[in-house]
C-alpha cells in the first residue's frame, strides 16, 4: 500500500504490465522521450527501450490503426490519445475496425489493444480539449469502455484493460492526474464490475470518473444516506450492482459530466426503470452538464460541471418530493 498520484498509478500499471508481458507496448505522441504530455509514461522508454515505447507523428488515424494491426499479430499495444477529442480524427479504426475485427474473422483473431485518452473539464482547456465523449464509443458492440476515478482504479483497471483480450477504451480524467491516493498494487479489479464507494439506503447515486469525488464530498457534507456507485465500466456496465442497490434504496440518480441531452446516464436510468419500475419510490433522474460547448472562463467552467452544492440541492429536493429537481440553470432562471 503506497500513496501515489493518479498519473503515477498509470505509469505503475503500464510498467508492471510491460514487465510481466513482453507483448505489451506503448505508443503515441510524445509518450517516449518526453515521457508523456501528462507524464503518464515516466521511465518507460528508459526501462523498456525504443522498440516497445515509441513516439509517433501527429497521426492518430495511423497509430490507432497500427495498434489494431499490431494487436491482431500478437502484440498488446497501448496507445495514448492525448485529449479524447482527437479520436474525432481516428474513430474509424477504433469503432469500425478494431471493435468488429473478431466478428469479421469468424472468431479466429482477437484485438487486445488499449486506447487511453485523457478527458474532462475543469482545467481551462476550452471547448475542444475538455469533453468527456463516452457517447462516441459506448454503443459499439465489440468495444469495452472504462472510466478511471482514482489512483487505485487507475492502477487496477488499466492493468485489467491491458490484460483484456479485446479492445478497451480507457477514459482518464485529466483533472485527476495530480491527485494523490492510496494504491494497493495487489488489488485486482474486473472490467464490468462497479465499485460501491459508500453504501447507504436513501438513494442510489451512479457516477463515473471525476464526478465520483464530487458526489462523495456532497454526501459527506450533506450527510445524506446515499449509496454511491462508481460505475467504472460503461461497456459492459454492471447492471446487477445497480439493480441490487436500487432495489434497496428505491431511488436512482446518475451524476455525469456528459451534456443533458444524449449522455450515457440515460442508458442507466432507462434500463433500471424498465426493470424496477414498480419498486421505485421516486422519479429516477440525471444530474448532468448543460447542453453547451465547454466554456473557457473559470467563472463559467466551474459552474458547467455539476458542483457539490448543486448535487446536494438536487438530492435534497428529490428525497423530499420524489420528483426530478430543476437543473441549476432552470432554478436560477438562466436557461431552459
Amino acid at each position, binding site marked *: 500500500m503506497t500513496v501515489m498520484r493518479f498519473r503515477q498509478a498509470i505509469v505503475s500499471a503500464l510498467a508492471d504490465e510491460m514487465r510481466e508481458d513482453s507483448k505489451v507496448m506503448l505508443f503515441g505522441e510524445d509518450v517516449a522521450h518526453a515521457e508523456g504530455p501528462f507524464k503518464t509514461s515516466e521511465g518507460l522508454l528508459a526501462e523498456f527501450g525504443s522498440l516497445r515505447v515509441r513516439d509517433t507523428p501527429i497521426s492518430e488515424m495511423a497509430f490507432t490503426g497500427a495498434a*489494431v494491426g499490431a494487436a491482431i499479430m500478437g502484440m498488446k499495444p497501448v496507445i495514448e490519445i492525448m485529449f479524447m477529442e482527437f479520436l474525432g480524427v481516428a474513430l474509424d479504426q477504433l469503432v469500425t475496425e478494431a471493435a468488429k475485427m473478431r466478428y*469479421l*474473422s469468424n472468431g479466429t483473431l482477437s484485438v487486445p489493444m488499449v486506447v487511453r485518452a485523457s478527458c474532462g473539464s475543469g482545467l481551462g482547456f476550452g471547448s475542444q480539449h475538455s469533453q468527456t465523449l463516452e457517447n462516441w464509443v459506448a454503443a459499439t458492440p465489440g468495444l469495452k469502455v472504462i472510466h478511471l476515478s482514482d489512483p487505485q482504479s487507475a492502477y487496477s483497471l488499466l492493468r485489467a484493460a491491458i490484460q483484456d483480450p*479485446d479492445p478497451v477504451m480507457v477514459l482518464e480524467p485529466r483533472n485527476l492526474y495530480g491527485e494523490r491516493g492510496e494504491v494497493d498494487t495487489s488489488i485486482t479489479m474486473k472490467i464490468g464490475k462497479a465499485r460501491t464507494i459508500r453504501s447507504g439506503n436513501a438513494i442510489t447515486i451512479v457516477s463515473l470518473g471525476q464526478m465520483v469525488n464530487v458526489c462523495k464530498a456532497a454526501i459527506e457534507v450533506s450527510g445524506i444516506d446515499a449509496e454511491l456507485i462508481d460505475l467504472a465500466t460503461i461497456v459492459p456496465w454492471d447492471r446487477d450492482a445497480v439493480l441490487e442497490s436500487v432495489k434497496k434504496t428505491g431511488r436512482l440518480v446518475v451524476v455525469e459530466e456528459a451534456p443533458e441531452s444524449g449522455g450515457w446516464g440515460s442508458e442507466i436510468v432507462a434500463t433500471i426503470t424498465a426493470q424496477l419500475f414498480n419498486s421505485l419510490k421516486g422519479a429516477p433522474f440525471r444530474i448532468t452538464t448543460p447542453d453547451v460547448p465547454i466554456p473557457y472562463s473559470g467563472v463559467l467552467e466551474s459552474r458547467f460541471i455539476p458542483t457539490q452544492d448543486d448535487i446536494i440541492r438536487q438530492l435534497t429536493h428529490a428525497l423530499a418530493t420524489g420528483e426530478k429537481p430543476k437543473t441549476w440553470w432552470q432554478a436560477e432562471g438562466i436557461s431552459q
Partner: protein
Amino acid sequence: MKTAMSRRQDIQNDQLTQYERMLEIREFEDQIIPIFAAGLARGSTHLCQGQEALAVGLASVLRHTDVVAATYRGHGIALALGLTPESVLGEIMGKIIGCCGGVGGTMHMCDMDLGLLPTSAIIGAGIPIATGAALAFQTQGIDSVAVAVFGDGATNIGAFHEGLNLAAIWKLPVVFICDNNVYGEYSRINTTTPIEDLHMRAESYNMPHFAIDGMDISAVRSGVSEAIERARTGGGPTLIEAKTYRFAGHSRTDQALYRPAGELEKWLERDPIKVTENALIAQGILTHESIQEMKASMKVTLENVLATCTQAPEPSLAKMFENIWTPAKDSR
C-alpha cells in the same frame, strides 16, 4: 480437393498453377453477377476481373507467414492466397461454410491461417492496419512482411498519408501496393487526383517506389519480390503502383457507361489471362487445346462449388451473437 494451405503454397513457383489460379479468379468473378441476379446473394459486390495477375503474382511471392490487408474488392486476393472457392462463395452467399461463417458477406474475406487479415470495407483502413502488423513483426524480431493492397482512389484518403509516413519513419517491414485500376467508383482517377503516377507520392515519405505492369504476372512477381525482400531484410517500406484496369463496373449495379469509348477494348488487349496464356504457350507450357480443357474443367469445378454453397446450411440465429468478445480463457 486441395486443402487451403496447399493452395496457398502450390502457386509459389509453378507457372501453370499460377495461370490456373488466375483462371479460377476470372471464372469465379464471372459467375457472381448471375448468382446475385438469381437472388442467391445480397447487397452489392465488387469484382476484380482484369486484376488477377496482381492478386496471384502477389500471393505467389509471399511466405504463408506474411500477412495481407486487402479491401472489399477481395475475392481475387482471397482465392489467390489459397482460400477455397467454397469458403469465398459460401461467404458471399452468407452460408456457414463461408470464411466468415456468413456474417461477413462479399466485402469481408478473412483467413488468418493463410495470412489474409479481415478485409475492410472502409477506404484506406487496411493501410494503418498492415502498418501495425509490420510493427508487431519488427518489435518481435520476426522476419515476416505485411502487405496492404488498396485502390487508386484510396491514395486520397488521410489514412494513406498517415500510414505511409508512419511506416517510413519506423522503417517497418510493409509493402504498400496501390492497385490502380483507373477508377474509384464512377470517377476516373484523373478527375480526383492531380498527378498521373500515384507511386510518386512516396517521395513525401522518402520511401522507395515504382510502378509495375499489373497485367503481366511476371512483372508483378519481380516487382513485388523486390519490395518484399527489402522489407524482410530491414530495408523498410515500399510503395508499388500496379497499373491495372477494372474490366467490370464498380459494383453489382454499375454498367460503367462513363468509360471513354475504346478504353476498355484497349485494356482488354492486355487482359492478364491472355498475357499469361501467350507467355506460357510461347514457353510450350500451354497449348490452345490445354487452355480450352482447363477452362472447361474450371467451369465444371465452379458449378460444383455453387451447388455445394447453394445446399450449404444457413447460419443459426445464435451465430449472430458469437465471436464478438474473446472468451476469457483465451486471455492471459
